[in-house]
């Protein structure tokens, strides 16, 4: 049997998502966003942006994670703050924006991890900090290993700039989105003096 017309299905799905959202039945709205790193998956609750999925996170895995940890009522629909986030990400990648002004929903991170990410959110554009320094700013100077795992589990990469945290050795260190993505973001922000300083 012939599959129903794809355009018709797409139109119906779009209209359905808008109706569902107007009724308040969409607990997590998501959109895809093309970026120089690849396609990002942006998720938002009524409280704010809750997840930025990097290309190597895998879209299906990110959607599963949102369904399991927040609500299974996950639907593709354009709504704030997603539209705003997409505009700001475009400006950021074009070098026109240095700071994100978005409502954030921190519910995917708790306790010390959240403290680490909040400290990370305050690292200015174009500069970097060490794991040890972030551990100190998060209130546990000795917990720099836990700091590393907090950053590795950052649900809001790019917006909460965990790419600005580097090992004291001056090397690039690891990144949830892969080392190449980290290098790309630091290069965009011209925050790469670490290579020179690290050589000293």
């Amino acid at each position, binding site marked *: 049997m012939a599959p129903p017309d794809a355009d018709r299905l797409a139109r119906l799905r779009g209209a359905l998502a808008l109706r569902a959202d107007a009724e308040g039945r969409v607990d997590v709205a998501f959109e895809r966003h093309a970026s120089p790193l690849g396609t990002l998956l942006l998720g938002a609750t009524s409280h704010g942006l809750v997840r930025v999925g990097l290309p190597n996170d895998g879209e299906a895995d990110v959607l599963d994670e949102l369904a399991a940890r927040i609500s299974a009522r996950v*639907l593709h629909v354009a709504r704030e703050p997603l539209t705003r986030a997409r505009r700001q990400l475009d400006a950021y990648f074009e070098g026109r924006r240095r700071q994100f002004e978005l409502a954030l929903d921190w519910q995917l991170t708790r306790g010390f991890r959240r403290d680490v990410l909040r400290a990370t959110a305050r690292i200015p554009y174009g500069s970097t900090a060490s794991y040890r320094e972030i551990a100190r700013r998060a209130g546990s100077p000795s917990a720099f290993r836990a700091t590393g795992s907090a950053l590795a589990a950052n649900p809001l990469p790019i917006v909460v700039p965990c790419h600005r945290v580097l090992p004291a050795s001056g090397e690039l260190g690891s990144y949830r989105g892969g080392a190449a993505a980290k290098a790309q973001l630091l290069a965009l922000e011209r925050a790469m003096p670490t290579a020179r300083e690290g050589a000293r």
Partner: protein
Amino acid sequence: MPARLPPFERVIEEHGPALLRFCVAEAGPARADDCFQESLLAALRAYPRLRDPGAVRGWLFSIAARKAIDLHRAEARAPRRRADDPEAGDVGCEAPERDPALWARVRALPPKQHQAVTLRYVADLSHADIAQAMGTSEAAARRNVFEGLARLRKALRG
């Protein structure tokens, strides 16, 4: 903790095409879009309470079957919007409309047989899913499909 439900977007992705075919066959071309949207909205509302993620398909079609009946009743009250209106015939992508004579026969079957045959051959549901959608045993679902087909064969021969 109950088993994990997939994100609802994936339910639409996986079952949307069959659901739309089912709505065209059951609610008629003029009301298919409403049937599709109303079914998915009702499903979304109830989704967090669904206990068995493995039963999504049957559960979704049980909702759609009820919506189709509601819409049929609405259609009966508004005779100008009948499925065989020339205006309503412009769908062009569903098999039921390619062979209207056959589908008129399907619609003329006793309700349970008619619904079972539609779920089996339009929505492509398994007998287990049909049982779930119609709230019957799997054996009863199988029997409804079988008897519906037998009756159709007889009607087409005669």
